Every structure is written in structure tokens, then in C-alpha cells.
């Protein structure tokens, strides 16, 4: 019965990957206590996967309404840039000792960054829900222009942040675990609670599966669609903060580049259909972990860089095939 659970397949794929790591990478699961926190490959993976998990979380809801948001990477760049610019500050040399100050109080800066992300979401949401543009073109606009805006703000330069407390978000530790993990957990928890305690999940699915019927049943379809895009951008905004905090700078040119593709991949690997409807938050989280584990495995195995992509694609094919019931049937028929 348990084996029938839809999460089993992505989980199995993740475990298979981890098994490869266990066999081929000595000390992969080795964890040690260092500088007051856990240190090891597994920690790296979850820490690195955190932004992707956030992005995938938002993407899941968008996809559930039969939409898609390809502006995630641009929003990541924008929010990271806003935060870094407001906090950043220039390094002041004081008798050869560098002193760092935040330009704007960090809280304000974070709020401004999230505000920028929410605006992006509202923009996308408006185009899709009110104007009725196709989601892919609607978000394409921001995908192109958003990164341009971020570069405009920074003049194309990488904005380095010197203000220590900001680093906590992306590379700090709490009770020995990466702080980003707690952020993700909190958001996931909040969303699952929202799904459980309110009818949001039901409504989103209804809109995704049959928008006409949903409207006739009295759902505010436009408002729901607007909401999911705002939420997706908010998640992307948080991911952007995490990424820029982690590298202590904001790189408007490259931050979050192609993150949308990874996020969509994570959602689909987690078993959510791009045709909308039924979705699985946990599945998307596992999907994100699969992707990050795979990337990390490639680095750790010493795969030559020119082979990276082939390996990645072959694994994605295998994971997908292993999830296909049709494939299993053929397998069985062969065996019989």
C-alpha cells in the first residue's frame, strides 16, 4: 500500500542517487562538527538546494493552475540586487582596518527586496489573470526586462555586501543546521498548513483542471491566479535573498540564471503534471533535492565538465522512465 504512494517514485530516485554516492564517493555521508555546526556533503546539498526548493514551491502552485512562470530567475536577480545595494555599503578603510556598515537598516532592505519581488509577482499575475495573456509570454516579458532592471540598478557590476548579519540568511547556522533550511521548512510548513486548513489547495486544483467549471461553481478564478503568481515571485524573492546572502554579493548578470528551468524540472520530477491540477508540494521538494544531489554528485565524482550535461540528461531520462507506469509494464512483459 505504502509502495503505491505517489511520493514513492521520486523518493526512490533520490535514494538511488544517494546510493551511487555512498558507493562511489568515499566519505559522502561523513558529517563532522566544525565551528559550531555540522559540516559535510549532505549539509552542502540541502543548503544549496534551499533556494531551488523555494522556487520550486512557488512554481508548484503556478503549475497547478495550469500556468508557468519563467521569470523566476529574473526575480531572483532583482530581489538579491535590491537587498545587496541597500545593505552593501562600501568598505571603509580605517587605518588599514576595514569597517563595514549597512547603508540601510537590514530589515528595511529585506522588506524592500521582498517588495520588489511582490511587485514582480503582481505584474505577472495581472497580465495573466486580468489581461488573459498566455502565462509563458506574460512571464517572458519580466524574464527579459527583470534582469535588465537589476543590471540597470547595479550598472552591471557585482554588488558586494560587507555587512555581516546579512550573511546569516544564506550561510548561517542555527542549532548546527543551515539557517536556510529553517526558512524553507517554515515556508513549506506555512503553505502546507494553508493547504490543509483552508480550501486554497482545492481551489487551485479546481482552477487548474477545469477553469470554466470552477468559475461556474463560484470560485474567484482571477484572484486565485493572481495570488499564485504573487506567491511564486515571493518565493523567488526569498530565494534571491538566500543566494545573494550566500555569495555575499549580488550578481545581477548571473544570479538565478535558468533557475526557472530547474524549478520546473523539480516540480515535474516530483510528480506534478504541467497540465495543471493535482500537485504535490513534498514531491517538488524531493525533486529539488534530486537535482541538487545530482549536480553535487557530478562535481564529486570528478566527471569531466564537458560530460556534465550528458550525465545530467541521462539521469533525468532514467528518473522519468522509472516513474512511468507504462515503462514498468513493458519491463514486466519482458520479464514474463
Amino acid at each position, binding site marked *: 500500500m505504502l509502495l503505491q504512494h505517489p511520493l514513492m517514485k521520486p523518493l526512490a530516485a533520490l535514494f538511488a542517487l544517494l546510493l551511487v554516492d555512498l558507493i562511489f564517493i568515499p566519505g559522502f555521508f561523513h558529517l563532522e562538527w566544525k565551528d559550531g555546526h555540522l559540516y559535510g556533503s549532505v549539509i552542502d546539498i540541502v543548503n544549496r538546494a534551499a533556494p531551488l526548493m523555494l522556487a520550486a514551491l512557488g512554481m508548484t502552485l503556478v503549475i497547478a493552475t495550469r500556468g508557468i512562470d519563467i521569470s523566476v530567475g529574473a526575480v531572483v536577480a532583482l530581489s538579491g540586487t535590491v537587498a545587496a545595494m541597500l545593505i552593501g555599503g562600501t568598505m571603509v578603510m580605517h587605518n588599514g582596518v576595514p569597517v563595514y556598515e549597512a547603508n540601510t537598516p537590514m530589515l528595511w532592505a529585506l522588506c524592500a527586496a521582498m517588495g520588489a519581488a511582490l511587485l514582480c509577482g503582481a505584474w505577472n499575475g495581472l497580465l495573466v489573470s486580468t489581461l488573459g495573456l498566455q502565462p509563458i509570454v506574460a512571464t517572458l516579458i519580466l524574464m527579459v526586462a527583470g534582469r535588465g532592471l537589476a543590471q540597470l540598478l547595479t550598472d552591471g557590476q557585482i554588488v558586494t555586501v560587507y555587512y555581516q548579519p546579512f550573511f546569516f540568511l544564506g550561510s548561517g547556522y542555527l542549532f548546527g543546521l543551515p539557517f536556510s533550511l529553517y526558512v524553507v521548512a517554515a515556508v513549506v510548513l506555512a503553505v502546507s498548513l494553508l493547504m490543509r*486548513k*483552508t*480550501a*486554497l489547495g*482545492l*481551489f487551485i*486544483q*479546481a482552477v487548474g*483542471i*477545469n477553469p*470554466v*467549471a*470552477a*468559475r*461556474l*461553481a*463560484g*470560485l*474567484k478564478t482571477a484572484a486565485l491566479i493572481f495570488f499564485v503568481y504573487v506567491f511564486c515571485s515571493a518565493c523567488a524573492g526569498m530565494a534571491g535573498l538566500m543566494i545573494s546572502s550566500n555569495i555575499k554579493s549580488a550578481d545581477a548578470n548571473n544570479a538565478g540564471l535558468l533557475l526557472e528551468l530547474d524549478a520546473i524540472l523539480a516540480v515535474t520530477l516530483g510528480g506534478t503534471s504541467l497540465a495543471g*491540477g*493535482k500537485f504535490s508540494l513534498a514531491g517538488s521538494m524531493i525533486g529539488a533535492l534530486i537535482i541538487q544531489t545530482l549536480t553535487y554528485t557530478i562535481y564529486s565524482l570528478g566527471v569531466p565538465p564537458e560530460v556534465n550535461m550528458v550525465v545530467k540528461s541521462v539521469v533525468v531520462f532514467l528518473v522519468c522512465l522509472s516513474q512511468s507506469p507504462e515503462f514498468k509494464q513493458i519491463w514486466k512483459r519482458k520479464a514474463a
Partner: protein
Amino acid sequence: MAATDVAPVLELTGIHKEFPGVKALSDAGLRLYPGEVHTLMGQNGAGKSTLIKVLTGVYTPERGTMLLEGKPIRPSSTLEAQELGISTVYQEVNLCPNLSVAENIFIGRYPRKWGRIDWKGMQREAARMLALMDIDIDVAKPLSHYSLAVQQMVAISRALNVNAKVLILDEPTSSLDEAEVQLLFTVLRRLRGQGIAILFVTHFLDQTYAISDRITVMRNGEREGEYLCSELSRIALVNKMIGAPADEQRAAAVAEDAALAQGGQAQAGQAAAQSPELVLEARALGRRGALLPTDISIRKGELLGLCGLLGSGRTELARLLFGADKADSGGITAVDRASAAPFANPRDAIGAGIGFCSEDRKHEGAILSLSVRENLILAMQAQAGMLRAIPLKRQQELANNYVKWLGIKTASIETPIGSLSGGNQQKVLLARWLATEPKLMILDEPTRGIDVRAKEEIMDYVSALCRKGMSILFISSELPEVLRVSDRMIVMRDRKACGEYQRGELDDTTVLHAIAGEAA
């Protein structure tokens, strides 16, 4: 009439088909002779559609043999079945809404000219075929442009267009009205004369007796028996379908009611009909291209029937009243409502206590991959608002109650609605709106695809609600049904209301004349 010494063209025996949690067919079977119309009957969920899908390669059975002209067949796709000479109209309209009407009829076997598709010829031919059914529409327009009934006719035309040995029609008449049905029967009789074996599914006893030579009754996935139509009384037939000989009287009543059109007038909300209080009044409600300005008012506790021919604008009126389409003229006043403007969207209408059960359950009703429970509580939840989730317990209770009351045949309330039989889906959607306890309920073809007995029960239930003070706007293509239950009736013709009749004045000839637009 098929002669028994002729070998059957098609013979199915011992068919088993199981879905997760449901045994849809167990030891089902069927014999079809060339040149007969064979009706397949059974309650909702008896397995009729499943049998047809097994036969046409949509599903693969676990067990069983299928012989076509004595040779075993096992089609693995509808394409294969078609190539074997089996042409099918499925219960849910299976056409492509984006393609033109003509293409929907001809796709897969286009007329050609110099190797390329001959569009002109195709459209001419399509128009001709539809004209046979008295449908006069622009065949170049996309199918989605037309109402469900027209779509059903297109599907039928498509099936007729094939040179088939076996023609299967799964509830083709569920949204057709009397005149269309007669036209269809004329065509079927002609085909029967050409030696084609026709398998026909319906829930209407009248139609069964009007056309069939032979009847196979199914019950709970089994073949209950095969009978010559002439040798089986209506009562006996209903009995065999229900499978409860003890319930003799009930069966008799059902058969009676279904047969006698306007006969024993059910004791609908007569008392309430006199109530002066209006629940809703629409003035000069109209929409370009759909409905000419129309007045309509509904009183509390009244059951108002709406009848007319295909495309007379009934569905459009209902949609405008509900705010599903935007009216471009007129106004709506309702109790407890400040504004007199038409409803801007369904939400407004629902807020004013209106419910609307659409005729097109596949596209406008069912949310296919959600469960029966979720489908059932959706409108209620929408009304309650997103934040006030109905507790799961309460949802289950509600769902279980309605499943019981309406006799919905489902493995559990968590089954996706898409895997229910057509009639059972319809019941769930009805329940969706009943659960919101509206002041006014608009029912557009609510009994579409529902079996005789359930129809009876639903109509009783609806009447009871009326007596409790709910008003109902009832649209049905079955004139007898409307006549039987309505307190008042409005006849529509050419996209506007053209006559109103009180209960006393109702009789079918007057109404038929009104509908057809001839002086009585």
C-alpha cells in the same frame, strides 16, 4: 426484425473488467444481429458504457471473448475497432472543439482532390449530412461555437458517415429533444434496413420501445438477460433493471410515470405557486447573438419550466440569469439585492442565492480528477470563502449523505469523479448545487443520462425542495418531464420567450404548437 437463424454479427461473452476498487463488468455479454436495433439498458453504473469501451478497444478486458462475424477480435485502440467496421458514438461527446463542424465529421477520412483535402467538398457534404437531421448551421465554424445538442448531432453524423457493420450509440439522445430524436430514428431505421447492426443505449423507455427489436438488460456489470422488445412489458423491463421483484409497485410507478407523458401529474409545489413573493425578476435581459431582450420572473417555491427547440435560447437565458455570460442589456432584481444590474459573474449570482447546474457536465461541471467529495462540496466551499474550510468530517458526512440519497454508485467518496459512470457524475453535480441550498436553482438538463428510477427520485426530491420554498427554473429537452413537474411554463422560440402557460393550461399539443411557432 432480426431473424434468429442468422448468425450474430457480433458476440461478446464472459467479459470481465475491473477498475481499481470497482468490478465494472463481470461475465457481461451481448449478441448483435445484422439489421437490428438492439437496446442496452441498465441503471447508472450498470456497466453499459464500459462494455462498449471494451468492445471498441478503449479498455482491455481481463477476460472474455469477442467474436465479430465468428472471428475472435481484440481491438487495442478505437482506430482498430473502426477498421474492423465498428463505428461508435461515446456517451461523453468526444470531438475536437477547435476544429470546424465539418472536420469533426470527416477527420480521419477526408474527401480528397488531387491528393489534398477538399475543403469545399467536405463542407458541402457535412452540411448535407446535418441537413438530414434538420440542423442548419455554418459547418465552417468551430465546433465549440455550438451547443451541446448540436455537438451530439455532429458526433452522430460522424458515426453514420462510416461504412460500418456495427453502429454503436451510447446515450445519443440525452440532450436531444423530441423532434431530433424522431429524425435520428428515421435514419436508424434506414440503416437497419441496410443490414447494419445497431447498438443503442438510452434511459428513455419510450425511445426503447419506439425503435428497438431486442433489448439486453445489464445489472451490476452482468448480463441480466436478452429479450425481444415485443415480449417484454415496461414494468417487467424496469423490474429487471432494478432487480428487485419485491419492489413491484415501485417499478410499476416508475414505468408508468416514465411512459405516460403528462399523465399522473406529480403533486409539485402547487401551494407555493400562488405565493406572490418574487425571488428573481429579469427585465429585458439580452445579449447580442444569443438572446433577444427577454422578461422573466420567478416566484418563491415555484417550479418554472422552460422549453423550446434546440438553440431556442434556453441555455443562453439560464447562463445570463446566472451571470455566466455577460448580459449587454436589461437588468435583474432579486430579493436582498440592492443593484438591479445583471450579474457580472457567477459569484454574484451565487451570492444572491442562485445555483446553476449546467447542461455540459464534461466542460462546465465536473472537475474530472478531483474526488466525488471535492466536486460535491466545491460550490459550498466557494460560497463559504477560501479561508473558512469546511471541516473534513463535515465534508465526508455531506458527501456520504448525498451519495446515499441520490443513489450515486461509486467505489468511495474519494474516487475521482471522472471514473464514475455518466449518470452518476450528473448526480454528483446536482448534489453540488443542492448542497448550497439556494433560493433559486437553475437546472439545465439535470436529468441528462440519468436512469429511469433515479430520475423519478430526483424529480421527487426537487419537488420536495420546492415545497420547502426553493424556486426552480427547470430546462429539459423532454417535454413530458417539464410538463409533469412545472407549476408554470415558458416557451422559447428564436432566442426569446414567446409564451407563458399556467399549470392548468398545460397540455402537450398547445405547447408543441407554441414551441414550433404555429398557431394552435
